[in-house]
């Protein structure tokens, strides 16, 4: 479970172009569930997701992960959490161009110094599960949109993270690929993982497997009831 208390995030703090991306957020994200942060562009979804995923620290307020405060931890501890607790799927997937699919999937595990053979087997198993085993050795720039997304998911799960963080994972994907993604999320849930994602795609936040939808507007939680 992740709890945010009075969380504020300012960019360019103290400068003329200071901007409040988040303003006084109080939120509890349940574990063992699928949570979707939704709202229009610029509403602060991605910033909130990056605070939840320990990629940035709030300007004020606190973030607790399973009861432990993580918002005040030094960078090295946050790195440790990103490595072991969270798996990330970025909006543009952010695979490293020029490297093969399997090299990309192995990347998060490299600093842990794993056994090379064991790691490759683990990565291949992930790719197999996501239907990408036959693409393991090709450079990622030759993948289609859906394949790129699945490669990014395989990379996010290589360290067996219990929480998957995904930022707009279905942007620019057609309905078939969106449904395929929802199937993958269902599988992850079946494995007992928590999934937190941002999306303004109704096909995602209205999906039956989503347990919790958090609406945002202008850096705040939108507490008004959505129209039925």
């Amino acid at each position, binding site marked *: 479970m992740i709890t945010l208390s009075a969380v504020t995030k300012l960019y360019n703090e103290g400068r003329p172009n200071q901007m409040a991306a988040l303003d006084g957020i109080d939120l509890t994200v349940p574990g063992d569930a699928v949570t979707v942060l939704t709202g229009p562009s610029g509403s602060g979804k991605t910033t909130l997701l*990056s605070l939840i995923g320990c990629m940035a620290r709030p300007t004020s307020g606190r973030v607790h992960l399973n009861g432990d405060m993580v918002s005040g931890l030094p960078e090295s501890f946050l790195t440790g959490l990103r490595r072991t607790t969270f798996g990330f799927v970025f909006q543009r997937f952010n695979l490293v161009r*020029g*490297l093969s699919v399997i090299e990309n999937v192995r990347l998060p595990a490299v600093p842990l*110094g794993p056994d090379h053979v064991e790691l490759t087997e683990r990565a291949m198993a992930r790719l197999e599960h996501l239907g990408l085993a036959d693409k393991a050795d090709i450079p990622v720039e030759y993948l289609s949109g859906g394949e790129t997304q699945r490669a990014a998911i395989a*990379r996010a799960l290589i360290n067996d993270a219990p929480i998957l963080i995904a930022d707009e994972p279905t942007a620019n994907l057609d309905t078939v690929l969106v449904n395929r993604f929802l199937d993958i999320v269902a599988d992850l849930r079946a494995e007992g993982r928590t999934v937190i994602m941002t999306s303004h795609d109704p096909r995602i936040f209205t999906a039956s497997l989503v347990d919790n939808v958090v609406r945002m507007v202008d850096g705040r939680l939108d507490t008004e009831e959505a129209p039925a």
Partner: protein
Amino acid sequence: MTPWLRRQRALADYTLSALGRRKGKNISLVVIYALIVFLVASIMMFSSGMRREADLVLSEAPELIVQQLTLGRHELIAGGEVEKLAAIRGVTAAKGRLWGYYYDRLNGANYTVMVPDDPTIKLEQGQAILGEAIPRSRGLSWEGAPLFLSRFEGDLVKFDVVDTLSHDSALVSADLMLITEQDFRDFFGLAPDVYTDISVSIRNEREIATIIAKAEKVMPKARFVTRADISRTYQKLFDWREGLLVTLAIAAILAFGIFAAEKASGLSAEETREIGILKAIGWDTGDVIAMKLWEGALVSVGAFLTGAVAAYVHVFLGGAGLFAPVLKGWSVLYPDFALTPQIDVLQLTTLFLVTVLPYVAATLVPIWRVATGDPDQVMR
């Protein structure tokens, strides 16, 4: 394998894959880098090889040479002086030497003409033993081809070439021509009882200073040249020549420095983004720096080894074709000989430190700057 080693292996593995993505750029960097190392290492290896060679040759030279001076210039010395020097205690032997220069108009080269003082060298009148460069430059390619020398218009003196000096001593004997004393005196029109200078053998080398002090009393106008003096002159000569080439090499190193600094100072947008991705997926600043250290090490150590090995092959196996004209020999006649392969660890270490460390250090600063940023930038 320990976890630390496994981590390093994994980082190196990733770095190699990452380097492979920009093959053209990285190969050209390594090639330029290796060329610079090759150039500097060749000069260093060659010069130190030459110094050793000179010392080797000089180890057989007499301990002391005595030369008569007139008006500050080298003058012929009277035969009677030989006896005076031989009579000094501590002197094993004193011998008058005959040597001079002959300018060969046919090839524009100067030969050092000398009467050998080695009793094992048997020469008869009309015969000559030549340094290896003379028959080469005169095109005396067949066995027994005579050497004709002309001192003035209409003059022709014939010498039968009975032997050629070995390549081992070619550093100082390439232009040497050995003839009998009688031929020498006839050829140069020299009086019977004068010598060019006197070679003095001394039993105990530590007594040289004392013997010189005694000899100065006997021959107050003479100049005394010790073997150490000759060695020093050679060393200075090679130092000077090495300095000349090193100056050129410094220009190349500077150009490379600018190239490396340019590469090091500005990370491309792609590299910056890649570091952001790595940080976001769980690499910490230390991991990124370790990976970039591997990159720097693979490029610079790879280039260093390539350059150093190429320099070794060039100098010791390939005869240093690129630098020989500058570093060895005199004007027209160049000795042809192979240097004894030897590696000066101190020199190589210095070269390693001045090429590899600055490169690695220069690449680290911008990486560190980017790697310490917040990883959430890749989210935006």
